[in-house]
């Protein structure tokens, strides 16, 4: 296996008695796009700031391209960063903002001008060179901030919730643009976000963080489909959680309400009589039996929300409620509240949360 480009090794950060990052380790491959995903206060920004050099780790080390940068100052790290609040210099024009890092590095004016023009072309804003930040929209400012961060050709790109201050439409287009630029340049990137859709859509890998620790580091597909912990399962995507009781551990039989489900090979050492939390993604459930669905549970329609192309249905199964979405079909009326209904799913899609 190739040596990681960025290696965060057993990093811890404490402020007095308050530990905000606990023993965090992560290896990032060259050119990889890794997202730190988690709720506010989970330590994701603190880890990013330690990589940038704005915070010093209480323990552990950070290695970039084989060089220990743990104690280096931010201006010695050759790292690019985009901030949530854009942080463009208000007194400088767009071109001067992009050229700032190049000037600091002592690049000749002609070369710097060429590089600024390249960057403006890359972010598709060549006509904005002489504008001031206050003359730009939020999305444009953030693209300029991205160009400014990339212009000095940093070894590593850090993105600290760069889309949070933008409206929904701009967020989607800009995240795609960020990803395409990152792929084109092949620059190793760390992206901090609390938005799971953002993380799932653009990352090579995601580190889901909670309580200062990485709960799971895996591809978006793995994170979504095979969450390692209860927190990951709950945090990423919508999840139906059902309480079940192991009736026969050897054959994987679990009782949900009064009905039996077979979860052979998934019980991971649970004993008969244990209570388990079982999880199902809404898209894994249907109201009629689909090919491959080997398990069904009977219940009663509790709620129906007609959302146009999609109908969101909540089905009560004993003390549990399961949410599922069905596509609208003009030939079939939506289910009626109080009606008996059978839901079906593949037992392989059911997750046992530990």
């Amino acid at each position: 296996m190739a040596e990681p480009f960025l290696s965060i090794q057993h990093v811890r950060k404490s402020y007095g008695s308050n530990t905000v990052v606990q023993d965090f380790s992560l290896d990032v491959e060259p050119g990889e796009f890794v997202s730190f995903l988690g709720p506010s206060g989970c330590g994701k920004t603190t880890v990013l700031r330690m990589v940038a050099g704005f915070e010093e780790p209480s323990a552990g080390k950070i290695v970039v391209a084989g060089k220990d940068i743990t104690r280096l100052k931010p201006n010695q790290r050759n790292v690019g960063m985009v901030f949530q609040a854009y942080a463009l210099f208000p007194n400088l024009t767009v071109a001067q903002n992009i050229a700032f890092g190049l000037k600091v590095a002592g690049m000749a004016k002609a070369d710097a001008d060429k590089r600024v023009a390249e960057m403006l072309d890359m972010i598709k804003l060549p006509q904005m060179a002489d504008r001031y930040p206050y003359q730009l929209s939020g999305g444009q400012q953030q693209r300029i901030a991205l160009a400014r961060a990339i212009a000095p050709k940093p070894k590593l790109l850090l993105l600290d919730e760069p889309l949070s201050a933008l409206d929904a439409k701009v967020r989607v287009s800009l995240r795609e643009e960020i990803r395409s630029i990152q792929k084109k340049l092949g620059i190793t990137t760390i992206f901090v976000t609390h938005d799971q859709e953002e993380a799932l859509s653009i990352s090579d890998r995601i580190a889901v963080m909670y309580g200062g620790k990485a709960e799971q580091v895996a591809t978006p597909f793995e994170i979504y489909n095979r969450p390692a912990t209860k927190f990951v399962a709950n945090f990423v995507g919508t999840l139906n959680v059902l309480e079940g009781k192991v009736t026969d551990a050897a054959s994987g039989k679990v009782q949900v309400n009064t009905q039996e489900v077979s979860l052979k090979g998934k019980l991971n050492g649970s004993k008969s009589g244990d209570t388990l939390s079982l999880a199902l993604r809404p898209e894994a459930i249907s109201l009629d039996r689909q090919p491959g669905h080997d398990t069904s549970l009977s219940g009663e329609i509790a709620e129906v929300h007609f959302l146009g192309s999609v109908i969101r249905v909540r089905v009560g199964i004993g003390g549990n409620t399961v949410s599922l979405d069905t596509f609208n079909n003009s030939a079939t009326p939506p289910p009626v509240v109080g009606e008996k209904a059978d839901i079906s799913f593949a037992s392989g899609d059911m997750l046992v949360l530990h």
Partner: protein
Amino acid sequence: MKSGKFWAWVVFIVGAAYFFIPLMATVEFSLRMRRGVHSFDAYQIVLGDARFQSTFLYSVIAAVFTIVLGVLIVVPAAYWIRLRLPQLRPIVEFITLLPLVIPAIVIVFGYIRMYGSNSPLPFLGSNMGANALLVIGYATLSLPYMYRAVDTGLRTIDVRTLTEAAQILGAGWGTIIGRVILPNVLIAVLSGAFLTFAIVIGEFTMASLLNRPAFGPYLQNIGANRAYEPAALAIIAFAITWGCMSLIQILSRFAPKSANRPN
């Protein structure tokens, strides 16, 4: 006319009269030097006086040095307090207010005792030393105005994020303060500079007790010994102050644009 508007006009007229009647009276008096006619004789005498020119030039130079010293002390200090030591702000604000509470005469007596020709730091042993001490004293007197102006300017920008953005782009502290922070608080620094200029031009106590040939002692001397010339001097000083304000306005148009000052 609505009664609210009527009273607003009354207040405006009373306020304007309060400011302009003494000014007009001073102008009128300054023109009466030649018996029976209005003339600019008093102005000609004042402006032609070599001591006026030398003392005024001395005070202008002292003001420029005071402003430079004030900016060099206050901008990095206020910046650092905002960035790294926000808990010290109340203490620093209190310290910067002290020159308003402690009379200049107390400060200058302290200087004379501390920096006399027999002290380890004999500022008063030479003309240059005494000039330097006067500038230091003026910088102290202008501290409350300069600090507040700069601090208010810093409040309008995101000091921490801008600093971090510059740092991550490779900038050192000199570049950050010189190219990022100072240009964005330039308007605030200019208003602090203007206040400093106004204080220095009219300051009497320090200049007099340190025996410096400044404009303040000259004004006092003329006022004590002449009739019409002090009125002419007052009007000239007023015009200089207004000139400074206009200059600040003009300069601020050329100052770097910021997101906080869109047009």
